[in-house]
């Protein structure tokens, strides 16, 4: 079948080429017997072009393949000249070998891995929970800039509705200002204007003290309490309005949050880290905008005011953290540099004392049925706990399905029509035709329920049942619309309908729920569940699933299949090439799950030498 596809491709190319009206004629190819460009085979249903398998491609064509894989382009003139100058087979092999080594060391390789990351770790834009009528995903006070011909050209004002305290200040000579080195442009100075210039940590309004590090919902734009400013290095503010176009463009935060999984993948490949860190790691990579996102996520809880004391987080040169190879200038805020997430968002737990770790022994046991008080946080677990994917897959079951597809190469097809299932009851994982997929999906889904995106006007990201966001005691009341707009928008009605006690996805009893509503957020996979042939170790949240993905070998096998398809150019057939998949997987694991040497192995394999002529 795949060979037929090649025939079809060539047939299509020739059929189009001989249409006559586009691009002129194509000559007969003497090297392809039976092909006559003056005949339209597709039109007259004549014989398809004949292609022959070529078990050993010319060195020049192999060099071309290597260049496409590692650089995304054919060989440049200098690379071709080097091959032409080689006069023996051994010399030509050496040229190709050098091309592989130099290509793997080139920043181009990083870029190709970013592209592959987008293809493999497919997620939608950071939209759900970040943008409605305006972008609120930054959880920050939005700033606008004064016009060049104003009294305060280029100064930043708070973009909220109160023009008198914001935009109108642009025209006021002598209006209060404060010069700061902003987080988004380290090494430079900007002027904050009007309320934005205030540097008090709190303001008191009608006797109530407000933490200026917390941004409130607004109309199109967010803003902290009236009178509050932007904080140290403007860390409480974001340079842009919620209605500004371009939130998907490179250089915007929303784009970066979409990019984050692919960037982490490329980072692991570039720095020769185990690919399992993608789900087991307590770290990520980010530009200053990504770091700012996590900082705001932490600060927005109101629990971690000490984050304001960190004045180096936005300085890319500080700490000499591993970064991407495309942004080598020390203070480049666009550099994708490594971050143990807990540093900026303490509720996303490192479980390692703040050190970078992907140790599978990282464990946090937390059972809302028996442990008192709100949850201590959520163990960070790489892509599985990133805001972008969890926003893009906005509920627990889509998250489970997508992550099973991405990391375990599972597919969810409908059941065959002749299949008979037990009658549909309260649990779709154990009855009805739904169970065909949900028996596999729901045991995983239960670990993904803590990320929620809610808000009055535009939803914003939260982790449920932390101290900053306690669950109302009367939350769970089936068959009634929850009156609080926040919890309603978070999906409380949906929980009442779908998060049913005594089901696979919600393994609690009615009695336990009656004792405390936070039992509803149980996200520790019970040890008796079997997922990918493994049992969970009692860790709360997605980290338990991450451990299963790795310990079962399913992520390794899936990664090998994805990498193979990308590098060699065809998918491995899991039905007919299972042993080959296993052999490649064994090599990948023995190599420390590092992408670069595995890519080198594939580029030198016999598979890449085969072609057509």
């Amino acid at each position, binding site marked *: 079948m795949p060979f037929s596809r090649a025939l079809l491709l060539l047939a299509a190319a020739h059929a189009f080429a001989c249409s006559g009206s*586009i691009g*002129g004629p194509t*000559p007969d190819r003497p090297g392809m017997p039976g092909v006559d460009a003056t005949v339209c085979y597709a039109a007259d249903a004549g014989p398809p072009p004949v292609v022959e398998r070529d078990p050993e491609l010319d060195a020049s064509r192999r060099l071309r393949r290597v260049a496409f894989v590692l650089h995304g382009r054919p060989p440049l003139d200098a690379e071709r000249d080097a091959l032409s100058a080689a006069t023996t087979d051994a010399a030509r092999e050496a040229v190709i070998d050098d091309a592989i080594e130099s290509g793997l060391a080139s920043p181009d390789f990083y870029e190709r891995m970013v592209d592959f990351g987008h293809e493999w770790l*497919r997620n939608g834009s950071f939209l759900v929970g970040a943008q409605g009528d305006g972008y609120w995903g930054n959880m920050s006070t939005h700033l606008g800039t004064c016009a060049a011909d104003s009294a305060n050209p280029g100064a930043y004002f708070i973009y909220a509705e109160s023009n008198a305290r914001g935009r109108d200040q642009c025209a006021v000579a002598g209006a209060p200002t404060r010069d700061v080195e902003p987080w988004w442009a380290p090494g430079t100075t900007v002027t904050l204007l009007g309320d934005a210039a205030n540097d008090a940590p709190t303001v008191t309004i009608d006797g109530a003290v407000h933490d200026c590090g917390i941004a409130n919902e607004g109309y199109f734009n967010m803003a902290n309490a009236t009178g509050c400013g932007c904080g140290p290095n403007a860390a409480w503010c974001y340079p842009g309005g919620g209605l500004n176009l*371009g939130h*998907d463009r490179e250089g915007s935060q929303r784009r970066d949050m979409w990019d984050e999984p692919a960037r982490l993948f490329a980072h692991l490949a570039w720095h020769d880290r185990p690919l399992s860190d993608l789900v087991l790691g307590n770290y990520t990579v980010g530009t200053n905008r990504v770091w700012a996102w996590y900082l705001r996520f932490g600060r927005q809880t109101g629990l971690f005011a000490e984050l304001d004391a960190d004045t180096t987080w936005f300085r890319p040169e500080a700490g000499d953290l591993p970064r991407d190879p495309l942004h080598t200038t020390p203070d480049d805020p666009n550099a994708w540099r490594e971050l143990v997430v807990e540093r900026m968002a303490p509720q996303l737990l490192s479980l390692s004392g703040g050190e970078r770790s992907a140790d599978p022994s990282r464990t946090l046991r937390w059972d809302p049925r028996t442990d008192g008080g709100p949850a201590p946080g959520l163990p960070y677990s790489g892509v599985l706990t990133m805001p972008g994917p969890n926003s893009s897959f906005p509920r627990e079951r889509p998250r489970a399905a997508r992550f099973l597809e991405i990391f375990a190469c599972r597919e969810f097809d409908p059941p065959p029509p002749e299949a008979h299932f037990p009658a549909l009851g309260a649990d779709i994982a154990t009855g009805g035709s739904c169970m065909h997929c949900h028996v596999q999906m729901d045991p995983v889904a239960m670990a993904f329920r803590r990320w929620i995106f809610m808000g009055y006007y535009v939803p914003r990201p939260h982790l449920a049942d932390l101290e900053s966001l306690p669950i109302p005691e009367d939350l769970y009341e089936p068959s009634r619309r929850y009156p609080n707009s926040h919890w309603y928008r978070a999906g409380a009605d949906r929980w009442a309908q779908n998060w049913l006690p005594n089901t696979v996805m919600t393994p609690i009893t009615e009695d336990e729920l009656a004792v405390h509503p936070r039992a509803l957020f149980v996200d520790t996979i019970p040890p008796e569940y079997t*997922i990918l042939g493994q049992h969970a170790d009692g860790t709360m949240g997605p980290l338990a699933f991450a451990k299963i993905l790795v310990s079962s070998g399913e992520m390794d096998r899936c990664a090998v299949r994805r990498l193979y398809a990308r590098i060699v150019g065809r998918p*491995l057939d899991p039905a007919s090439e*299972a042993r080959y998949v296993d052999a490649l997987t064994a090599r990948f694991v023995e190599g420390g799950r590092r992408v670069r040497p595995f890519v080198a192995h594939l580029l030198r394999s016999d598979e890449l030498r085969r072609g057509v002529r």
Partner: protein
Amino acid sequence: MKRALAVTLFFALACDRLESVDSIRSAADPECAQNENDAVRMRLAPTCAPCHGVGASRPFFASLVAFEDLLAYDARYVVRGDPDASPLVAMLEGRGEGAYPQMPLGVDSFADLDARGQTAMTLDEVRDWITNLPPPDPARGGPSADAATIRRLSADELINAIEVALGRDDPSAGVPPLLAVDGLPPLAPDSPTSVDYRDAERRQLYLMLGGPTYLQQRMPEPGFSPSSLLAVTQLAQGACASAVDANREVLFVHASRTATLPDAEAEIRANVAYLHERFLHVAPTEAEVDAWMNDVFVSAGTPRDGWVQLCTGLIRDPLFVTF
């Protein structure tokens, strides 16, 4: 569709014997089986293949190779020589301990169906098969010899290939610039729609070439469609005409842009051969040079059109647009 095809294939493989539930047991020993394992596969298939056929996540019954490598010789399911220790038997009997305590999934286990005579193989026969399961074929394990050996170039690879062929020496590895249009900034394939309306035309061209644009959930086009072939041709025409009119040095190494036949035939032939190798990375035979000369260059009428059409034809060549 895949499943329907699998079922169809099974019935074809089973020599058209399975016409009704009542006839299942009568078809218990397909003569067309390749070996004993294949016979077992065919006899279990009516019960199992609908969920485990071609295209399934676990395609145990897609082929004999799949049956052996994914099920019969995978200790997670079958312990050779020991049916009591084989999770497969436990699942068929409805006492599995994993995520799937029972197979087939649903109301009745295999054992229930067996008790009613609705399987093509009995549980006892499954047990006997596992007890006497021969060792696996040690020779198997490499890549499929029938697998495809080429793929199409993606849109960014195609654009870069055109630009390199026409003399650009610093194409981007990530977001390739399309050929300059009105001085606008390079098109990013993941530029969002509805943001920069000026980019719409080039964005559309990029998508017509096969993409991808992941931000908009458009995966790479796996093969060439009529629209992508059209886009390749149009892009090639424009790029080649521009390069020829600019007298791009890399295009005219052995002959000038204005060289005419018959006076400069040797130079033109040499340049045609040079361009063939530059674009396709394969040295042409004399016969191929003849073909490009006669069918393309000469028939174009003027030297300028000849070089443009030669350049365009080489870009459209299967060796150019594939990996």
